[in-house]
């Protein structure tokens, strides 16, 4: 870097313009702050600014606007840490952890749990098996109980209820919170309620002043009741935690959980015809657009991957796919967990349609297109070659698995 000080008039203009989105990042370093004991600390190096001739200038009139500060990327804001050293009580939350991560529904539930604990209690998250979540602290978890072991793998509701029952007798949480969702929370919560012999509040969407409101019957009535110990809450029951950080300290059960003899044996997932799954609820979609040249290969790849097929508007207009396969504003709004966009540059209408998708993979020739900006993994290259390689890679993997099994 050269020693010549260069003025950046644009940056100076941004630094003066308080309404500019980058204004905050151009402000000079903090010059004084209040220390832990209340004494005002000063950083003499941060006072003033470097003038155009390279000499530090201190403007004591208070009108200083930063001047020639190098543009920094916005600093990561460290949220204040909320600590509960000795919890007076616990509120236990059993998140769904769809795909090993906290869902939006789970986060809402932690928000509700924070309402219920106040400052004395602690929010306890109970997670079964492996997980991929890294943000338990910002989700609002004070204590994290991980129950691992092969007995919890797969579909083992009876063993899980056994563990929750053991936890209930050891810690006696003030409340149990479950997501009332089809991903397992509704079932587990009801099983635990039946085991404990307590009446839960179901489909709760509001908790206020010790009262809770939940949908009843077919959803045309509300049931108002005093807040029970077991709560099965609907999505958006509370705002998720956003302003604090929490410890998420590991916790373990005092006594190991007794193993139950399973009466329900998990026979594993059954292959479902991906084309028969409605696109709006398909979990895995491979979508093709203008960049797909060989549609036969595209269909072959979708079959090999076991994915539901989708298409962009262009592909549908050109007659390569049927209208009911169109993803986007005028087609279907998909909720897939994994969305692979092949040769789709990402018109805003298409990006709206995939707004709810978790992981997006893009294959495209143009490295500047909007789909690449949205995608978690992008391959810049020709779609035909990538599809061909993908089919081969899958075949190789399948063959390898068969050989290992044999």
């Amino acid at each position, binding site marked *: 870097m050269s020693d010549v000080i260069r003025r950046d008039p644009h940056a100076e203009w941004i630094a003066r313009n308080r309404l500019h989105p980058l204004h905050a990042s151009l402000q000079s370093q903090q010059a004084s702050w209040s220390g832990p004991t209340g004494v005002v600390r000063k950083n003499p190096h941060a006072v003033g600014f470097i003038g155009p001739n390279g000499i530090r200038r201190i403007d004591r009139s208070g009108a200083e606007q930063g001047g020639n500060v190098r543009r920094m990327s916005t600093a990561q804001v460290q949220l204040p840490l909320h600590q509960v050293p000795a919890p007076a009580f616990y509120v236990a939350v059993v998140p769904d952890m769809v795909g090993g991560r906290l869902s939006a529904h789970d986060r809402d539930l932690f928000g509700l749990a924070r309402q219920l604990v106040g400052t004395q209690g602690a929010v306890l998250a109970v997670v079964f098996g492996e997980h991929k979540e890294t943000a338990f602290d910002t989700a609002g978890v004070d204590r994290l109980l991980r129950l691992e072991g092969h007995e919890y793998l797969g579909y083992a509701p009876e063993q899980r209820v056994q563990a929750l029952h053991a936890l209930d007798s050891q810690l006696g949480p003030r409340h149990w919170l479950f997501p009332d969702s089809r991903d397992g929370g509704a079932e587990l919560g009801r*099983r635990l309620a039946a085991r404990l012999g307590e009446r839960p509040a179901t489909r709760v969407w509001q908790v206020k002043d010790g009262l809770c409101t939940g949908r009843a019957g*077919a959803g045309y009535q*509300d049931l108002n009741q005093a807040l029970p110990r077991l709560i099965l809450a609907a999505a958006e029951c509370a705002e998720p935690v956003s302003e604090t950080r929490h410890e998420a300290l590991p916790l373990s059960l005092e006594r190991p959980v007794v193993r139950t003899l399973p*009466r329900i*044996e998990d026979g594993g997932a059954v292959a479902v015809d991906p084309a028969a799954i409605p696109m709006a609820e398909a979990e895995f979609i491979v979508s093709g657009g203008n960049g797909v040249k060989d549609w036969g290969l595209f269909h072959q790849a979708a079959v090999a991957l076991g994915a539901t097929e989708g298409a962009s508007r262009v592909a549908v207009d050109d007659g390569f796919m049927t209208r009911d396969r169109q993803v986007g504003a005028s087609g279907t709004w998909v909720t897939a*967990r*994994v969305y692979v966009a092949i040769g789709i540059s990402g018109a805003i209408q298409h990006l709206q349609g995939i707004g709810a998708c978790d992981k997006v993979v893009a294959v495209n020739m143009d490295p500047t297109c909007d789909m*690449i900006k949205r995608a978690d993994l992008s391959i*810049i*290259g020709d779609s035909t070659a990538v599809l061909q390689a993908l089919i081969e890679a899958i075949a190789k993997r399948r063959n390898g698995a068969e050989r290992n099994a044999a």
Partner: protein
Amino acid sequence: MKSKIVTLVSVGAHPASGRARRAEHDARAVELGLRLAGQALEVLHVGDPAEPALRDYLGMGLAHLDVLEQPAGGDALPGLIEYLRDAGAQMVLAGSRAETGEGSGMLPYLLAERLGWPVVVGLAEIERIDNGIAQVLQALPRGQRRRLNVRLPLIATVDAAAPKARQSAYGPAQRGELLAHEVEIVADELLSAAQLQPARPRPKRLKVIKAKSGADRMKAATAKASVGGGKVLKGVSAEEGAEAILKLLIEEGVVR
């Protein structure tokens, strides 16, 4: 051995008019039972035997329907437990939740807990039953299915993934018999403490911008959706690209 199958039904409410009708999920449970057991299927209701909506179930081809007589606001559970224990049923099918009243969906779980039976949630299909073990398909979200082997006797709940219920025919509905049985009446204490009221529309979640300064608010209003730090593979061969995609798909568990 032909195993005895009992389906529990309730009175539903039409989504538009609110008029009493057969409950959607319960009708699917009856359909599943009819496919399995045919005329041997036993259908059971707890409530008022004079309820005309019960005839909608009879119209699906049932000769009779047993009703454990109970006034409105009673607890259906104690009578049912006693009845099912004596009936020697091998499989009990029920809808996932009632369309009227509390509709908490707890009844199958409570029955299973008291009777000591396993409960299967979201039954889609019964593949076969042999040696006291039922091999069933369970419906999962996103159109997926899971195979389960469950020991009989069992309780299964049925939701929208089960086969669609057949139409109800008027003639059989009028000819069928509603057989009333006397049971002990237990009041449900819930409604003494809680109130049912017409559903309030849920408040829409607002996008709250927690900005301290004007600049932050301006940024929140004008900034494009976050440009996530996605991985971009440029100048790699097609094979390397395909490997990277496959690795992500396997990590996410969508390719097995």
